[in-house]
């Protein structure tokens, strides 16, 4: 029951987890005959050592902030939305339609349109599972999972049969007009005099994601809806006593979750790829679950966890580029970090608590 000081809980525990993860990774790398120090240095330098690498890190992190927030907002209402993948896929469709159908004179207008479209498409994709859960008691885990598959199939049909330009064999839309391309993070920072590389996909969506994290925090802890949502998530029976409508809260929570998942598309589709490809989400919807868990369902924690995952993704790419470590081993390294930081913090917490208790006793003595 002894509680750790807050700083230790928030900073020290993840840090120790990270160090343990790196230690295991080092053993693994050494076992395949590579230099662990070199590999870890490449990961760190390649993802944080330059604004070029940092841009990639931030680009990946942006995706995870969106999907992590989406998962967490449903978690707060005790709903396990694992349909982020499908909702983000549909968000991509919304973004693509917004960018392709209307000849926008300026990116800012296109951005507003695609924000609305991606959120609406993502939310719409969560609506039916939400309704089924709220009214019919069909379990959300099953339905959202199934809707991921339906989303893949739908996207395949739409891209292959409708949106694919004639003569192209890539199941993807045409490139969006240049006018809808979002400003790069490097360009934005350049305006305020901070030199930052523009040769990476980091774009204004990162700032939108940060703003959204703040907005989610306000929503959860400073609005009636957030209050009702959290109360419902903690104790459903008590929420009913308080007059909170379980059907409405379930639907609202999942609409919000789906909408935020959908917003991921402004980063991945409009901000980076400039076109909609078949697999535009690439598992970020599932990574969002890990991010939300690691971030303890708090927007601030989710931003931090997303940065860590962004680092892992970019670091992994750099490992592939800079060493001959096989792709499969890189995946294992990434999994190790997720395992230790996400799933095993309690392993570290207990001994650390004992240590703190002993220190406190010594001090008192």
């Amino acid at each position, binding site marked *: *029951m*002894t*509680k750790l000081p807050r700083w230790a809980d928030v900073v020290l525990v993840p840090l120790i987890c990270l160090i343990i993860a790196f230690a295991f990774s080092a053993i693994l790398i050494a076992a395949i005959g590579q230099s662990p120090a070199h590999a870890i240095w490449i990961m760190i330098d390649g993802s944080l050592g330059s604004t070029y690498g940092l841009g990639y890190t931030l680009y990946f992190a942006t995706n995870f902030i969106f999907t992590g927030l989406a998962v967490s907002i449903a978690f707060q209402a005790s709903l396990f939305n694992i349909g982020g993948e499908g909702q983000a896929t549909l968000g991509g469709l919304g973004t693509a339609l917004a960018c392709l159908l209307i000849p926008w004179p300026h990116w800012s207008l296109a951005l507003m349109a695609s924000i609305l479209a991606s959120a609406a498409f993502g939310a719409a994709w969560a609506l039916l599972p939400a309704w089924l859960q709220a009214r019919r008691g069909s379990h959300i885990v099953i339905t959202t999972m199934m809707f991921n598959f339906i989303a893949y199939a739908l996207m395949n049909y739409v891209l292959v049969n409708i949106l694919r330009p004639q003569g192209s064999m890539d199941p993807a839309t045409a490139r969006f007009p240049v006018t809808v391309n979002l400003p790069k993070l490097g360009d934005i920072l350049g305006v305020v005099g901070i030199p930052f590389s523009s040769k990476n996909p980091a774009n204004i969506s990162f700032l939108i994601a940060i703003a959204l994290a703040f907005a989610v925090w*306000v929503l959860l*802890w*400073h*609005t*009636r809806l957030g*209050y*009702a949502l*959290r*109360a419902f998530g*903690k*104790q459903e*029976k*008590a929420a*009913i*006593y*308080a*007059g*909170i*409508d379980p059907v409405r809260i379930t639907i609202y929570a999942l609409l919000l979750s789906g909408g935020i998942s959908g917003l991921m598309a402004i980063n991945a589709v409009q901000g980076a790829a400039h076109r909609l490809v078949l697999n535009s989400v690439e598992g970020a919807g599932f990574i969002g679950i890990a991010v939300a868990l690691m971030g303890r369902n708090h927007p601030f924690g989710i931003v931090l966890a997303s940065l860590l995952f962004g680092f892992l993704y970019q670091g992994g790419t750099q490992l592939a580029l800079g060493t001959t470590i096989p792709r499969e081993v890189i995946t294992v390294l990434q999994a190790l970090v997720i395992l230790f930081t996400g799933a095993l913090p309690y392993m570290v917490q207990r001994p650390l608590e004992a240590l703190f*208790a002993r220190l*406190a*006793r010594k001090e*008192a003595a």
Partner: protein
Amino acid sequence: MAQATTGGRQATAAPLSPYAIELKGISKSFGPVRANRDINIAVPRGTIHGIIGENGAGKSTLMSILYGFYRADAGTILINGHETAIPDSQSAIRAGIGMVFQHFKLVQNFTVLENVILGAEDGALLNTSLARARKVLGELSREYDLDVDPDALVEDLSVGHQQRVEILKALYRQADILILDEPTGVLTPEEADHLFRILQGLKDQGKTVILITHKLREIMAVTDNVSVMRRGTMVGTVKTSQTSPEALAELMVGRKVLLEVEKKPAAPGRLVLDVRDLRVKDDAGVERLKGISLSIRAGEILGIAGVAGNGQSELLEALGGIADATGHVVMNGVELPLAGRRNNGQTRRAAGISHVPEDRQSLGLIMDFTAWENIGFGYHNAPEYQRNALLMNNAALRADTERKMATFDVRPPIPTLAAKSFSGGNQQKIVVAREIERNPDLLLVGQPTRGVDIGAIEFIHKQILGLRDAGKAILLVSVELDEIMGLADRILVMFDGRIMGERDPEKTNERELGLLMAGITETKGA
């Protein structure tokens, strides 16, 4: 330190100390909360020692330290005069300490025998353990009048029998010191009497019993000595024969306590609530409320007496907008919706109904929420808690919480503490403060003082009476007859979803009510 006496038992094996347990200078803090401060206590061997105190006084923390659940920040534990470290419950068991918790730790679909040996199996084969345990269990049962069928499934046993299994578990592990935490909270009066006989038997066999309770009657009935705790400190240990309930209550609370509330005669006014033919079915379609009709006037308390599970909960839920019902409920002349989307807690609150639910931990509070969030619970849409159309005014809610905590003497008065960190009595005060302070026309109250300590009981009763005297209508549901008799202006007795009859508390007695509660309508003069 108050003087403690040695028990009547002759020491044969030359123990070093006449005390089974001595605690010296025990302190324990949880963050800002100092649960135990420099506690000293000595329990003579072969006695029943009561530890009494209000909820939150630190009794449970102290026993958890003794049983190895918590580690004390400071202090030493002596068992039979030997200094003993108890880092976990296994060490406690080795030191001869057995614990019977308020909430039993039994595997429901195991037999009594299986539960008893669970965790104490010896040998690889279960059969030998079971055979040995059966023999030992038989001896123990006879010796201590702990009559339980070893092959019965725990889930089929009554609460009182389950408790005996817990005691048997401890004895099977050769406990010499038995700690019981609020053992009578879940028992009927008859079961409680049986338990006390068992404890007496244990004492006669030389065992040491520590009884943690907040019920003065039990302390007076069975203990030899009693230690009183208040706000984390030990305020005194006295011989039971040399004290009185009033003196103990004063020690516990730190001031004089009125054990019976003073009540002015009621002055019923206009009709506030009129209920006609109210019926509720449960999820399985079984009718739980079979046509209830009642009415409450302003300025009166209508008490609902009955054994738990006879429809009282359904009555409260139907009136509180939690469950769907059929029939008619007219509040201040307006008919309330009993089903559909308009039937919810929000519309009830808007109609002037406040509700202190029977189960504060699963209904009345969100245990993980802070106190200030809980003060807004159910009223989170109230205009005074809003900053604008979009945002809530958390600062206003927090300020309101501070005010209410002060008025209702909630301890500790920290609005940012989670509800689960408060003691039961203080949790209930938060709920009562929230509901009464809305100044409702009708207050629904279920089991207002269940698991609440004396000081808080007195306080809550005063608040309910105050609301009545302010001309409000109150529906009081309680399984405690004392409470109903003391507070209600009229008493309805419920049995099997029906009202068995109405009685005037001044003109009835526990026996008459008890028969009604059992579903027996007595003919006058019989």
